[in-house]
């Protein structure tokens, strides 16, 4: 089979395997709401609700029915995309999430592309010179990035480039005082993206470099590398054409496994920079004790993580046909 067909096949198979996990996440959320010490009707209606509103919530979520029936109703509506109504915003949770998610993905995916390009290059550079100053520097840098909370990196960038140097804006997606059009609007957007994207790149770069370097070091010890050298392949060719594709299997797998952590990094970074995405939504949900919104955001991010794992699994099966079963 050709690569595209194989990719489609393995995505299809993984969709089937992902279904139970998504199901488990929804059930887990239901169990957590039921386990909490507070009356779920109050959780869903917000603090100090009017008695008739509380009754309406009880009726809407069938809270007077048996637990089994409640679970069935909750799972049923969640799977149909109904995640309840936000108490604070008074809007359907799904609508709010879909309105905020693209902005988060703009930030996350932009930084992920940049971080992957730089991270993989640094990892190849370090692994090709094991034990040298370059290797030590790259390893130290990635370990440092790995140890710093993403939001603190953001705070430091704001301090340096917005407060002290005054070069870049530190808050929001665009200037509030002026309105720009056309190309100027685009420039304004990009200027607002520089700092949040940079702090996310530093955070993601650490993970990508750390694991890719380790995988490259392993790959370079394999027999096929010696064979390639013996056949007279250049060092560049051995590194990028022979070793790297094998090391990338690890990189892609790690990106899937760590996707939840990457999203967590985006969420806290958004808060530092006043970026109006899912992070903002999480923060509002927690600050306002808006539980339908909070559980909705949780289910959404979890499903995103499951999907990311599925995609990276499928990509790995194309990169490395041995893993495709």
């Amino acid at each position, binding site marked *: 089979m050709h690569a595209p067909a194989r990719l489609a096949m393995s995505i299809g198979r993984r969709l089937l395997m992902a279904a*139970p*996990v998504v199901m*488990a*996440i929804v059930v*887990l*959320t239901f169990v*957590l*709401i039921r*386990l*909490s*010490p*507070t009356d779920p009707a109050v*959780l869903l209606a917000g603090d100090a609700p009017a008695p008739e509103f509380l009754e309406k919530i009880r009726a809407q979520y069938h809270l007077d029915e048996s637990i089994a029936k409640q679970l069935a109703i909750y799972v049923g509506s969640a799977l149909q995309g109904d995640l309840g109504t936000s108490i604070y915003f008074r809007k359907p949770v799904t609508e709010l999430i879909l309105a905020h998610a693209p902005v988060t993905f703009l930030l996350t995916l932009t930084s992920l592309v940049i971080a992957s390009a730089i991270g993989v290059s640094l990892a190849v550079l370090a692994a090709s010179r094991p034990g040298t100053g370059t290797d030590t520097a790259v*390893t*130290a840098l990635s*370990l*440092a990035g*790995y*140890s*710093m*909370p993403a*939001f*603190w990196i953001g*705070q*430091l960038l*704001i*301090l340096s480039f917005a*407060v002290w140097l005054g070069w870049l804006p530190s808050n929001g997606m665009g200037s509030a005082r002026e309105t720009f059009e056309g190309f100027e609007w685009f420039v304004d957007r990009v200027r607002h993206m520089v700092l949040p994207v940079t702090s996310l790149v530093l955070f993601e770069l650490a993970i990508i470099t*750390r*694991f890719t*370097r*380790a*995988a490259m*070091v*392993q790959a370079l010890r394999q027999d096929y590398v010696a064979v390639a050298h013996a056949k007279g392949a250049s060092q560049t060719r051995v590194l990028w054409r022979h070793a790297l594709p094998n090391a990338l299997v690890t990189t892609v797998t790690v990106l899937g*496994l760590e*996707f*939840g*952590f990457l*999203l*967590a990094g985006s*969420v*806290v970074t958004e*808060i*530092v920079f006043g970026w109006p995405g899912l992070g903002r939504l*999480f*923060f509002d949900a*927690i*600050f306002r004790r808006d*539980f339908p919104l*909070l*559980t909705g*955001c*949780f289910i959404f*991010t*979890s499903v995103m*993580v*499951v999907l990311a*794992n599925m995609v990276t699994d499928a990509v790995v099966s194309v990169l490395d046909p041995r893993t495709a079963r």
Partner: protein
Amino acid sequence: MNAVNPFHAKPWPVWRALNPSGRTGLLLLLTALLLCTAVAWMLQHSPSTMSEALREPPGAAHWLGTDDLGRDVLARVAYGGQISLMVGAFSALIAVSIGVAVGAACGYLGGAFDAVVMRVTEAFQIIPRFFLALIVVALVGSGIWKIILVLGLLSWPATARVVRAQVLVLRKEEFVLAAIMGGASTTRVIGRHILPNVAPIIAVSASLQAGSAILLESFISFLGLGDVAHPSWGLLLQQGQLFIRDGWWISTFPGLALSLTILGLNLLGDGIRAAHGDTTGTS
């Protein structure tokens, strides 16, 4: 097997076995411990006493400055570290205990038990730990012990997987077979013969888990779910966020302490792993 275990050496066994970066990690960790114990007790300022000196930059009276309520930042960092280190230590203890138990049982028993439990572990690992912890803390409340418990209970799968892989190999070693032939009980074989040889891996796991628990607690605090009664480094960072423009020292120093401690734990973890023979840098 014990003969090659670098942790059974002469005086300073751990120090001797570690590479330079592992030693740096150990030093960073010891510095953090010293700051949170000895230094914290020697300070004249209490972390909660407010003073007239509001948002004073670092100087002679307050080495790291004061915050918006006139509290000494150095004292707050030193006492905040006690909370953060406690989160790291106890979350790691919980996670590693469960992880070792599950991993050892799966690796040793194998068969259907192993297959089922490992499938569950894998599924469990996909659910984003940070967001799940966030939801649980939002629902059950922000007490520091609740946060520790939640982080510990959600973090065991990684340990379980590495321990299982190692036990799977050790189970077929001759000294283990000899012990079984000698009539040792299953618990004795696992406890006396297998686990001591998994010890370095457990130490690596504990050190990395502690670092990641401290990091995740800071994320939770930053989203407004920290335990206000027990201000950790993460909570100090969240409170400092408001004053980033006119009090850089309020969030910079807790962030530095937090990052250096986590860096220390990660370096130590990698160092122990390297001492045990893996030189690639990560698992």
